[in-house]
């Protein structure tokens, strides 16, 4: 229902045409969206820190003619060898083999965090086991896509990409292969994520609209540079 509202302040006249509305559904929807945005922002900050600071190893075992090449099993083996040599601890325990068709045991693994754009390349890599081929679905993460060698790949649409950074100008995908406690995120005391709701009387000159927001502060850094490797790859 449209209404005209007039509000006089000491130095100016504020006139608004407004629609009366039930704000609860919009508020619920907004809260959900802000929650997603909050967690996504936390991840993006950590992702950007890793992209800036982690040492990298180029994939070189592929055949696409680019530098770096597409990901291969030999590149995964090389990265895990480097992490083993540096005494990095794997994050996930092994999944023992079971007598089930189409499954294969999964060894103790590091995490490889990467972009969803890499899924066709991963699928085409020799030695790739997709999540559905694990003997057990216990302790499988929702973002997990599969496993090669001792790396279990977690995918995200927010995965790190270096645009036009290959020899041919293609995008280079940064796959952060990390052992346990390779990096840390510290949320400051009293300033961890807060969802802030203000009713209309505190948000608006005319007490018409509520506001909702979030704020947080966090610090992130690599704790041991030898326990994380940025494996750089182009698409197959």
């Amino acid at each position, binding site marked *: 229902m449209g209404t005209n509202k007039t509000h006089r302040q000491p130095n100016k006249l504020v006139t608004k045409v407004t629609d009366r509305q039930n704000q609860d559904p919009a508020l619920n929807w907004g809260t959900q969206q802000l929650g997603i945005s909050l967690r996504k922002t936390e991840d993006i*900050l950590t992702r*950007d*820190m890793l*992209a*800036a*600071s*982690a*040492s*990298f*190893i*180029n*994939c*070189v075992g*592929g055949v696409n003619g*680019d*530098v*770096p*090449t597409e990901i291969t099993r030999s590149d995964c083996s090389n990265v895990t060898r480097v992490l083993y040599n540096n005494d990095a601890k794997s994050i996930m325990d092994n999944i023992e083999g079971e007598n089930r068709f189409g499954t294969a045991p999964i060894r103790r693994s590091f995490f490889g965090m990467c972009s969803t754009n890499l899924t066709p390349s991963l699928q085409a890599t020799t030695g790739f086991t997709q999540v559905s081929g694990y003997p057990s679905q216990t302790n499988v993460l929702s973002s997990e896509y599969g496993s090669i060698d001792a790396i279990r790949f977690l995918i995200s649409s927010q995965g790190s990409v270096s*645009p*036009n*950074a*290959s*020899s*041919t*100008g293609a995008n*280079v995908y940064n796959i952060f292969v990390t052992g346990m406690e390779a990096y840390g995120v510290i949320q400051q005391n009293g300033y961890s994520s807060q969802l802030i709701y203000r009713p209309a009387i505190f948000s608006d000159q005319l007490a018409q609209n509520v506001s909702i927001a979030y704020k947080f502060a966090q*610090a*992130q*850094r*690599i704790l041991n*540079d*030898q326990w994380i490797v940025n494996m750089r790859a182009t698409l197959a």
Partner: protein
Amino acid sequence: MIGTILGQGTFLANSVGLVNPNLGVASSSEAAPTIIAVPSGADWVSVRNFTQYGTAGAAAGAYFQGTANANIGTEFFWQRGMAQGSALATYKAAATGVISVNTIATGGITIYDPSGNNLLAQPRIGNPVAVSASTDATRPVVTHTADTSVVVGSVVRMSSTAQNDVNGIDMVVGTVTSSTQFTLLTTTNALATAPGAIGGAGFYRVINFASMFYPRMRKVSNITRASVPTVGTTVAHGMTPGQVVRFKIPTQSGMVQLDGIVATVVTVVDDFSFTISVDTAAMTAFSWPTIAQQPSDFPTMTPVGEDTAAALASNTAQVPTIAGLQINATSVGILADAAVNTGFQGLILGNGGAGLIPTSPIIGPSGSLTWTSANVVTPDRLYWVAGKSEFGGF
């Protein structure tokens, strides 16, 4: 008014990396572009050149990109809705105090947001520019189609040339010869060895951002063999004395004895090189991976911490700096290695461009430099005011 945010500040025109364009002769020239932080963002900005307000005009005799045909701007205005990089400009067209007005389409004022979240801001990566040739040298000379956006200190990323060991590697531009030619790298961070063949046709893109977080991993272009060796990086490193870095040296780069070794930064030579505490005199010579060795890994240095004792011994130099300016939000002293988010919102004040009518160049809102016959520089002093508006739009 409620919702209006105003900001203001002052700066000196930036001469880092620039020399007198007419060596041995007194002259005036453009300064390097300047980025000012405006945390709120800005809907409009005004820049006034305090020095040039009280100086007679250059009468189209100031140097702009190597040619003495420019006037020096005295005042610039830009507001949201105008094209990025443009500005309304006033200047003195004759050697008098009479003011003229013009519009510049490039080299004016541009929104800066390295996060990539502001679609109106300068893009993080520029459009590809065609390259016709690049030389087989430790500082490859790149010939390209006309492009005035590359200045000394720009970072470019080559692609699709025959030099696949240079492609994809961000490199600083050390010299701009003309609008169709520049030289990669500087005398202090040239590649240890030439790529192995000429580059031929391909592309480059101007990289308008550095990684958001400090300290930053960097690709290593050269390491000398010495008791206190010098390390070159392909782009500005931002290191400070006392910081500790770990090297990754692939077999293609020769000096594998340094692979995995941690070294302390002893001195910072310049933005692109520093000395370290590890004696490399007896190690295998360092080399840049060649074309024939591709695909390969590349040598890098990764900051891993701080040698507090070494840092305390040179405490006055513990400020992470690039181009003479402290990197935004970095810590100083023995905490100079702290991991911080360097991102900020701001404005890029450009070094000028051609006017619309008349078309002679106008030195932009980053100010001008005055050089003596002894090649000593005096920068302009500029003041800026920026604001967010209460209402309105484009």
